[in-house]
């Protein structure tokens, strides 16, 4: 297992190099001159040129790329073009809140999703099934910003029990995590349900029942365990997306996370921040898929990790 993990981590390096080259090329290809944006629309050409030189943007793209990579090796992510602050400092305050928010959203979404999914499956076509699936469909259909604003109206403005946004203790995570997790919860519920239904039709479940095993044992030990493999895949993928994709939620709740930072940086064409954020998201994504692979073997030891 350890050998496998080390191998996977080493494999990350070439992937990151490719990702870094592609991002660097893409962000330089899209229209938009950071020097002009930093200098402002009332800036003169001379001022824009001064800014361009001071930011090192007058150098060829290849040189800029190598400078970026050279600094990256020493742990220096560069300096933001817009704020003039080291990118690492900007990440420090935003990375962990984003991670916690993602974990918290995933945590409750997984528990709730599994619960609703299992409950719906074992009560197929009865009212608990309909209730569960209505909840799931609602969770996936409500736009994040709308759900967020409704939650603010109810819990902050009307009831006054939770903050409207910002980051001030654990209570600040509650509404954003509900908003962010709603969609995932629904997806997990639906996958769990269909996967459970499918598994419950299979021979080994029938055999289990024929052997006289308790229904609870059949469902939890046999059906659920095998159903979980596809659920873990979906959850893992969603988790990866969540890490960088919580822009809407972060905006509604003025949550200081990575998603908003990336979007702001793209609108300013802040190359060092965009480049570093995307690399960070790539690392996270790869690590999450590694964890998913490991979870497969935990769930079903017959699945061998290819070392």
């Amino acid at each position, binding site marked *: 297992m350890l050998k496998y993990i080390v191998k996977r981590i080493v494999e990350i390096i070439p992937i990151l190099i490719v990702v870094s080259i592609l991002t660097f090329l893409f962000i330089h290809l899209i229209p938009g001159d950071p020097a002009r944006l930093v200098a*402002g629309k009332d800036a003169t050409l001379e*001022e824009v040129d001064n800014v361009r030189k001071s930011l090192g943007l007058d150098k060829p793209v290849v040189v800029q790329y190598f400078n970026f990579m050279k600094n990256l090796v020493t742990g220096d992510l560069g300096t933001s073009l817009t704020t003039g602050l080291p990118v690492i400092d*900007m990440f420090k305050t935003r990375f962990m809140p984003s991670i916690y928010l993602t974990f918290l959203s995933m945590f409750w979404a997984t528990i709730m999703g599994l619960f609703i999914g299992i409950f719906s499956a074992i009560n197929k076509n009865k009212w608990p099934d309909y209730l569960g699936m209505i909840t799931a469909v609602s969770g996936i259909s409500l736009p994040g910003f709308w759900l967020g604003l409704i939650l603010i109206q109810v819990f902050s403005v009307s009831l006054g029990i939770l903050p409207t946004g910002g980051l001030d203790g654990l209570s600040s995570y509650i509404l954003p995590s509900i908003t962010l997790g709603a969609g995932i919860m629904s997806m997990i519920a639906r996958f769990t349900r269909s996967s459970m239904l499918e598994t419950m039709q299979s021979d080994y479940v029938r055999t289990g029942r024929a052997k006289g095993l308790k229904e609870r044992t059949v469902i939890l030990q046999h059906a659920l365990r095998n159903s979980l493999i596809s659920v873990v895949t979906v959850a893992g993928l969603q988790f990866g997306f969540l890490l960088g994709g919580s822009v809407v939620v972060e*905006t509604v709740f003025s949550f200081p996370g990575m998603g908003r930072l990336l979007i702001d940086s793209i609108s300013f064409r802040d190359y060092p921040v965009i480049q570093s954020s995307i690399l960070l998201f790539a690392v996270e994504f790869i690590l999450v898929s590694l964890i998913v692979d490991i979870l497969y073997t935990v769930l079903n030891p017959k699945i061998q990790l290819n070392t």
Partner: protein
Amino acid sequence: MKGIKNFIFLFAMIFVLAACTNDDSTDPVNEPTKEPTNSSTAGDNNKSTSEKAQELVIAVNENFISMDPHNTGDTNSNSVQSAMMEGLLGFDAEGQIIKVLAEDYTISEDTLTYVFKLKQGVTFHDGAAFNAEAVKTNIERITNDKSLRLYSRGFNLVNSIEILGDYEIKVTISEPYGPMVTRFASAKMISPKVIKESSDQIPKSPVGTGPYKFSKWVQGDYLSIERFDGYWGGNDRVEKITFKPVSENGSRVAMLKTGEAHAIYPVPAQNQEELSKAKDVTVNSVPSTIARYVSLNTFKKPLDDIRVRQAFNYAVDKDAFLKVVNSGLGEPLDSIITSKTIYYKKQQLYNQDIEKAKALLADAGYADGLEIEIWGNTNSDTMKGMQFIQQQLKQIGVKVEIKSMEEATLSDEIYGAQTPEEAKLKMWYVSWSAYASDVTNATKPLFHSVSFPPNSANTAYYNNPETDKMMDEANSISDEARKTELYANLQDVIYKDAPWIFLGVDEILYGVRSNVSGVIVNPGGGLDVANAKIN
């Protein structure tokens, strides 16, 4: 079963970890003081007025970019800086120039020499003395570092800085430059100790002479400042102010309602009525220097014909524009500059007259109408504005095609053209704001022939040697009477030439809780919290 247990255990651990370490999650970028933030939540809303009376929370719509006052382009950063740092001169509530750290100042007749007598007994937050030497260090920083925004804003013309005494300094510039006084007002003084020893800290944690000193900045979350008890202007103000960037309009409004924020800026126009009805909340409005217009490319057909441009102006109902696009706020733009801008002269408004507009178009050879593109960014208000123009011009047979582009792409499309011939721009729905005290910035970048893109923002490619001459002369003299005359003529000529569809002037809305006083917004959009109090 063991697998499931492991699975749930893993998540539970992560959850516990997240919950436990939550408060450390916001390692601040800069933290001179170790105390935690005190911003109130809705939950402790009721006790907030008594226990936390000395902390004011202000929610603004955008993030702060930098705390370096010599390199700031955005209004929000500038507002926070103004509470911490002061210039030799500054701005009053109307946006006009006042003396701040300068006891007095004189400008030579040729407008080349500026002599400042400085206030005595002023110290920076780090204990450094404010004197002529400190001013010299600051102006030298701006004039030597070409990457600073202020360098190109007049300070690139500085020839010499001479210390005349401990509290007297003379600055000479190489050529007359009208807005130099405004430039001095925006050049805030930073502690010379910081400039010399740790200039890399300036964008993160500035040190000035202002009524508040820097406390803590958690990027993207909040920035707080504390009262500076050694301030030369007394101490009758709130102890601490926390600024929070909250870009979502609905959330900002909710914060004011719950009392989580004592003031919010701006109040979205569509929420004005709702907030006015809310308990303990007041919505204030300020006429701004933000002009809204559609820039018409006077270099290209069909807009090279003055009759077409005037027809466009006569086709648009300005009051309807304010109602539809600006939620009924603001006033029609009745000159090339706003009424709050110095040397403003009201013009005869292009009142909507469809028949006249049609006649002008027919006269210009477009009796059957024409097709034209309008550009703008993807902002929803811009979209609404462009659709309004489309609907209005349709009445005179002009078919407008809307092309909305993300801001950076739009900027590239406009400033990418090296010559007027290359420009593809026909009409641009946009706004401009300048300091109320700076008529040069409200005119030269927009109407002077040297300001064609990419040089500057004359996107109407307005080219008139007569008005160029007026601007050049007005910019180089100190004779007030002559200046007033020149700017009056300039407004007469350009307004008639109609290089824009003149639309409206914005009104700025901001909301405060009724127990708060001293939070004001000036016409340029800057927040002034220097005298903020919670009663």
